[in-house]
């Protein structure tokens, strides 16, 4: 049985709430919110600039995030819309004590070697591994063509696999990457990539996590990295 039901934006199933986004509407920056655009998501940056043209429909489905400034660390991040009372995607708490599950399907459109990519549950939107005390997400490291995963908890500094010495899965341009990040009732976090457990650690603190997907231009090279995001889904236990 599928966990998610494609085509449905939100539904309840027993004690869990599900949100699903396949980008039927185009994502724009915060100030551009309008009925013709996505009302649940926005794009923003932690470095560089952001413009509405940084996200475009992908004709094969989903949206393409771009880094268009050709400057090092210029990024483009999908974030639940931050306007007050705009969307559950940001207003809802996906706390680590709510047994949250995050999933997405992404693929790299171009410039793998110059891209930093991350997707999962974090406290902040930035790609840096060490910024958040608690997080569970996948990431690619700059200049390395492999997929890594990170779980950070307050008790375990962080567990990272897929680094250069242990490349578990190779990142290939245009190949789909299915990411699943979850925190169970015992506060143990796990990250799966294409169905394979890549990182896990127990002892996560109670933390308000958010779903993020982002891409950053590592060196500001001539080719601006682009990331296709086909869909994002999150769920959590309803009861607190």
């Amino acid at each position: 049985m599928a966990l998610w039901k494609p085509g449905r934006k939100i539904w309840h199933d027993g004690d869990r709430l599900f949100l699903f986004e396949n980008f039927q509407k185009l994502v724009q920056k915060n100030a551009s919110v309008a009925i013709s655009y996505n009302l649940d998501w926005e794009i923003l940056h932690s470095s560089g600039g952001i413009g509405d043209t940084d996200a475009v429909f992908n004709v094969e489905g989903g949206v393409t995030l771009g880094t268009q400034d050709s400057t090092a660390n210029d990024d483009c991040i999908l974030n639940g819309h931050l306007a007050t009372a705009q969307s559950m995607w940001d207003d809802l708490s996906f706390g680590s004590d709510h047994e949250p599950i995050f999933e997405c399907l992404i693929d790299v459109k171009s410039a793998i070697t110059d891209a930093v990519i991350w997707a999962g549950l974090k406290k902040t939107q930035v790609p840096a591994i060490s910024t958040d005390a608690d997080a569970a997400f996948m990431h690619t490291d700059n200049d390395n063509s492999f997929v890594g995963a990170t779980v950070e908890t307050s008790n375990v500094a962080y567990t990272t696999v897929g680094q250069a010495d242990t490349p578990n899965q190779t990142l290939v341009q245009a190949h789909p990457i299915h990411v699943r990040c979850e925190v169970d009732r015992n506060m143990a976090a796990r990250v799966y990539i294409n169905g394979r457990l890549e990182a896990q650690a127990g002892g996560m603190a109670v933390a308000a996590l958010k779903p993020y997907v982002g891409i950053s231009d590592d060196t500001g090279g001539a080719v601006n990295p682009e990331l296709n995001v086909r869909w994002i889904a999150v769920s959590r236990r309803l009861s607190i």
Partner: protein
Amino acid sequence: MKPPESILTSRLELEEYFLQPPGINGDIAVAYSLDFEVLESAVSAGSAASTDCVIFADGGITLGCQNGDDTDDCVLQPHLDATQSAWAATKWGTDNEIEFETLITPRTAIAKAVLWAGLKLTSTDVIATDADSVFVRVEVGVNSGQIQSNISVGGSDTTVSTELEIGLEVPIRVQITLDAAETARVYVDGQLVQSGSFAGNSADLIPYVGIAANSGSATDELGVLYVKMSRRYA
């Protein structure tokens, strides 16, 4: 450890149940569907108005021919504004393993209208117009009023009779699938009625549902309960 049960999906799936009625292109607003619009096809002598499409109390929408002109029609299609909707922005290629499904029903005792639903290049119901298409079509008073299925590949049209007839308020479920080999299959009410190959002749198609008065009747109406599209991601 066993991988967790997961979704899906390597497919994009869009569904439209018409919680808001589609209006004409220029009427886009919160009161209307933001994914679909209604228009008149190129062969229509009428003019489209948002009142041609209304919410139906028993579900879905009703498309109407309201001008009383022989060629007046009303066609439902993804909204044409740039960057408005993934329904129009997504490529529905015959090489993308696409699926189309709709549930339609005649709302009035249609005397002479033409109904059509499926995947085409343009909005018109005329079989010969599109070089590539796969859709069903029924013209009351022609072919004994039986539903026809048509597959056009590279300008070569193959039309078959399904031997199925329409009835007032009797839903017709139309499903069209194209597999990895670009073989199209058309199902009406679950019955496979036609198949044909687009291999070597890939085309990007558009979902359409329409009604043309064809008789000057201003009362011909077609109910559309839902429209669904699906395709494999890249």
